[in-house]
């Protein structure tokens, strides 16, 4: 039943793309929806209280509003972490968060990364889980989605302006994230995810021992954790924890929640562009990359661990270390592939214990960072590669490249080169620093080649704003907290700024009429070339690191 359940899940996700895409398009365009009578009032109230005028912004104003809002939110949340022992709703008497950990955690959640150097059980009070974590899960998702909305407007638009950031964040929160979160929360609670303000409970077991049962407002966090492709768990065990993901139904719901908005956004782009064929071409390229990763991960895990097989433990069930019985290999491999594609970063099995090739597929998807991606950002990255592909093809035939009827020139390509290079630069340079310093090396928990994979995985996850981890890494130290914090920060904002600058300069260009010499970007040929460009650039940049980490580990296991 492994493939039927995987394909059924992906099939349901596909069925949701078109209706959700249509709705997203309406929300981004500001057109009417059936919820307007209620939601317009709520939005109006929010605009009034915050003094928002619904004026159009050019790209610089948009970026400044985005950065300022994120800065304010980061500071607010940092204060909450540092003062959580003084605030209300702390029934389990959690202490204040230490400064470097609070720095890391605040950046981690504002950038939609959700790398966690703490565990919820000892690290956060209920009020922090609510007003810091749950709050940022909404707003960081809305921020990324707003940036993508602005990017699409620039791409299709005829004007210099990209919309209003404050209005975008408000509308996306009240019309998309909040209603979905409420529905998903209630289904999760029905299935057994706790939602209470009561303190942890201690029971006496039938063997006469004690057991602590952790509780809290879990469901309201877990729902937005996936809808917003955030990924940070209420508990250390994340979505492997039976209180975050108790049944196969909740697992299905969480996978669908992750896929829903990133996939539908591509379709919404097609509607706004009035060119669905172009959108499906981009969609197909993303789907193809996902379709390459998924079987690789599944079969690697299904093969099991040859060392355990040698010592006599049957591996017919597959590599069960770090996995849950109710999910098995199929649901675990699917979850791992989807969570690293959609840059969610929640896990329903421990990635550190994945087989080398299983771990490699997770790592690879974060390295290329274009397969659907988190809220809007994966889409923007794919468009960046699309422009690069057009440019490369233009070079080959010696013609000025065009994309969506706009000429691609020096300024755009320079900005795109920056955006593409930032990602490997921050990953590889910071990995190098970690490997050269005792403080960095001290974090490694697994010996041999896997230790290198742990370091690279951590920074790749941070730069891709994914948030999953090879969690054996002892990362709650000043070195790891601060270095990963800086990597998450640059991974998020540099590419957003560069890409909004690109579309703003495209938006004012005169459209070039399509002629017989135009390189078509809406056919299978373009899809193939696009995938090839993504894979070649990814392989060229990361192959040495991959070879020394997961591939070397694989070769030693299967010797």
């Amino acid at each position, binding site marked *: 039943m492994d493939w039927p359940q995987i394909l059924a899940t992906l099939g349901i996700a596909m069925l949701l793309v078109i209706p959700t895409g249509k709705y997203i398009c309406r929300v981004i365009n500001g057109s009417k929806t059936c919820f307007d009578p209620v939601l317009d009032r709520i939005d109006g109230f929010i605009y009034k209280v915050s003094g928002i005028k619904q004026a159009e912004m050019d790209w610089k104003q948009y970026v400044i509003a985005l950065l300022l809002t994120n800065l304010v939110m980061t500071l607010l949340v940092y204060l909450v972490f540092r003062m959580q022992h003084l605030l209300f709703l702390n029934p389990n008497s959690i202490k204040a968060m230490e400064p470097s950990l609070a720095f890391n955690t605040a950046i981690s959640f504002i950038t939609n990364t959700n790398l966690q150097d703490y565990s919820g*059980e000892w690290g956060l009070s209920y009020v922090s889980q609510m007003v810091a974590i749950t709050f940022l899960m909404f707003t960081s998702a809305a921020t990324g989605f707003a940036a993508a909305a602005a990017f699409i407007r620039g791409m299709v638009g005829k004007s210099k302006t990209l919309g209003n950031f404050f209005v975008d964040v408000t509308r996306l929160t009240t019309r998309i994230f909040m209603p979905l979160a409420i529905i998903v929360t209630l289904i999760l609670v029905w299935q057994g995810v706790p939602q209470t303000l009561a303190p942890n409970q201690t029971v006496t077991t039938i063997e006469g021992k004690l057991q602590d049962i952790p509780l809290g407002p879990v469901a309201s966090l877990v729902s937005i954790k996936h809808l917003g492709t955030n990924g940070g768990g209420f508990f250390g065990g994340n979505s492997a924890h039976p209180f975050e993901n108790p049944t196969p139904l909740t697992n299905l719901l969480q996978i669908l929640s992750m896929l829903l908005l990133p996939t539908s956004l591509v379709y919404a782009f097609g509607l706004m562009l009035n060119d669905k064929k172009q959108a499906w071409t981009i969609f197909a390229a993303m789907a193809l990359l996902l379709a390459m990763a998924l079987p690789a991960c599944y079969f690697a895990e299904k093969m099991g661990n040859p060392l355990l097989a040698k010592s006599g433990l049957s591996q017919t069930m597959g590599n069960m270390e770090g996995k849950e019985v109710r999910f098995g290999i199929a649901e675990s491999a699917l979850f791992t592939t989807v969570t690293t594609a959609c840059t969610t970063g929640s896990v329903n099995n*421990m990635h*550190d214990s994945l087989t080398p090739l299983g771990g490699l597929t997770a790592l690879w998807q974060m390295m290329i960072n274009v397969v659907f991606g988190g809220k809007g950002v994966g889409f923007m990255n794919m468009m960046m590669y699309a422009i690069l592909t057009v440019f490369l093809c233009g070079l080959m035939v010696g013609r000025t490249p065009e994309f969506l009827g706009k000429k691609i020139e020096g300024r755009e390509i320079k900005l795109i080169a920056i955006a593409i290079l930032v990602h490997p630069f921050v990953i590889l340079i910071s990995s190098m620093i970690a490997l050269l310093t005792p403080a960095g090396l001290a974090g490694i928990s*697994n010996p041999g080649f896997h230790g290198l994979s742990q370091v690279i995985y951590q920074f790749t996850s941070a730069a891709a704003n994914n948030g999953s981890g090879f969690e054996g890494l002892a990362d709650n130290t000043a070195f790891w907290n601060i270095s990963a914090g800086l990597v998450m920060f640059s991974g998020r904002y540099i590419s957003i700024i560069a890409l909004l600058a690109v579309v703003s300069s495209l938006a004012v260009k005169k459209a070039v009429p399509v002629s017989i010499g135009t390189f078509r970007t809406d056919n299978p040929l373009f899809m193939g070339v696009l995938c090839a460009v993504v894979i070649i650039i990814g392989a060229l940049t990361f192959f040495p690191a991959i070879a020394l980490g997961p591939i070397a580990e694989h070769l030693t296991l299967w010797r």
Partner: protein
Amino acid sequence: MKTFFRALRLSLILLVSCGLLYPLAMTGVSQVIFPRQAGGSIVGYQGKPVGSELLGQKFTDMRFFHGRVSAVNYNTYAKEDTVPDKDGKTAYGGVASGSANLAPSNPALMERVQQDLAEFLQTHPGVKKAEIPADLLTSSGSGLDPHISPEAARIQIPAVSRASGISTAKLEKLVSKHTKGRYLGIFGEPNVNVLKLNLEIAELLK
């Protein structure tokens, strides 16, 4: 500057609505519609709470079925485990979850599995090495996995029967009763809830 104050005001109103109103409203609604689940699906035995049906427990008594390897010992402990030793450390460090995150190539994983394997063969005479399902001797991701595979339950039946005096036929029936199939016949894997199974055994042992 105007933008800054707009950003601040918007942040505050979203903080209150997404961070306070939403989770509190969800808590209120959940407590009314699904009070048992919202409170952690606590199960009782003889009128007292003895665990959560969703969380695994550490069982050591041979009359009971045993769960998977847990890096956090299922948050199960004895009173003396909370008393600090002379270094100020306690055997039980407080509620936790997760696994030991051992890489497949880590020698510590081999050592742990070999040790558990030898112990299992000793306490379950008649069982062949190759028959032991992998889930029994591998650590779960959460450290709180409430389930084992049906095969992992069946292989323990002879030993549980010997220690408890309950017939193997009766135990077979109980295991089948507590085996849950895939959701809608497709999603997830068949599993047995160890705590629920053991509660029935405790009932029979009374």
